[in-house]
């Protein structure tokens, strides 16, 4: 078998530029975790069904497992590592998840938080019903949903005020 062909790509992640060589089939998720040591973004189903790998591309929430790394060259990527401020202050959604105890095992949490930040920004966190609908793409196998909804509701109020 011949060695796989790699291509050079340049990614902008959390405001920092990264240059790397990848096979064209490498997903953004694998590039983040295996090549750039940004392991906050989680691999759950790897099939676009669970939302654990949610990141932002140009400010919009997407699934890193169904995005090729090569495809997002030239776009701005934000991961869970990029939410915290330089002085260590947590994002309002991160703080609300802690305060509301919105997790058990924590594996889905980075994806939940990235999704919630976008959900609030989109204006889709106006009621518990709306939060449940627009957070439906993030599964929690522990079943922490009531606390997740409470955290998103709290953060939405804080962000909007």
């Amino acid at each position, binding site marked *: 078998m011949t060695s796989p062909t790699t291509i050079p790509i340049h990614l902008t992640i959390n405001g920092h530029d990264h240059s790397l060589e990848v096979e064209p089939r490498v997903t953004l998720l694998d590039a983040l975790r295996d090549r750039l040591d940004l392991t906050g973004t989680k691999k759950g189903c790897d099939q676009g069904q669970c939302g654990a790998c949610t990141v932002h591309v140009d400010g919009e929430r997407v699934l890193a497992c169904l995005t090729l790394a090569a495809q997002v060259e030239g776009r701005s990527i934000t991961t869970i590592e990029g939410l915290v401020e330089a002085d260590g202050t947590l994002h309002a959604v991160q703080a609300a998840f802690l305060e509301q105890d919105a997790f058990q095992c924590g594996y889905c949490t980075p994806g939940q938080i990235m999704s919630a930040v976008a959900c609030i920004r989109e204006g889709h966190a106006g009621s518990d019903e709306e939060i449940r609908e627009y957070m439906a*793409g993030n599964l929690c196998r522990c079943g922490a949903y009531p606390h997740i909804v409470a955290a998103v509701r709290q953060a939405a109020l804080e962000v909007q005020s």
Partner: protein
Amino acid sequence: MRDFSYLRATSPAAAREAAALPGAMLLAGGTTLLDLAKCGVAEPETLVDISHLKGLDTIEVGEHGARLGALAKMSQVAGHEGIKSRFPAVSEALWQAASAQIRNMASIGGNLMQRTRCPYFRDPANFPACNKREPGSGCSAIGGVTRGHAVLGTSEACIAMYPGDLAVALVAFDATVHLGERQLSVDDFFLLPGTTPEREHAIQPGEMITQISIPASAAARRSTYLKVRDRQSYEFAAASAAVGIELEADGRTIRDLRVALGGVATKPWRARAVEEALKGKVLEEDAVRRASLLAVEGAVDHGANHYKIELAPRVVARAILKTGAMA
């Protein structure tokens, strides 16, 4: 996932040329294609990335109707004010589909190219027989677990269900797919399985969806998409209906009616028999329930999907009554 080469297209013409080569496939949002590549179903040799092409993502809505650029995202069309006011069923079909993340990724053109979710089709390692994947190899679904399979438009070769929502609303309102110069009705764009289930769309190598247009109509303006499913959100339809109604000036007689079904057929399914039975009639519940039974004329079940034959007419009737009650 087998490796492939990656090419970023710089113009629609270059994309079409590259995509015409053997083993090449167009890549837009990637939500179907990369998923199927991971399943071992799609095995492209080259992916031609069209997601960076300019000018193909515009959404125009006016008196004539709507023009949706092929690269507009599902979320952009679902949230567009003109679509929400003139084509509510289209907006509702979109936001009830998939998840917020997937709607931000998936393009409108790619949405029409979505493949079936038949679990036998998606699992080549365990189920080598699939006429859709390997023509002539047989169908693992027939005689298998069929709860999610089609009851309308099936053949002896394939009973895979068409899983999408948007196209159901599009066929109800006579939308057109633009493949560059060539145009096809959305209804004709989707093919019945017949003896060639491997062909799902009337698109040729080297062709690319550039636009979808929907003519304006009073029925589209007063329309609903009703989706019934096993869980409340982020789930494919057990049965769904896109319905649009235009009433006469008396406010109770049906002048125009559009009905299309999702979740029950091998392609987006226009239910013209229901439409014809109710046009010119007064909109009242008994007549609507009787006419809605025509939606499943000719339906064939394969055991576990029998419930769809009972469910679909109820979904159609509820959607018609709900749309009729709209202001």
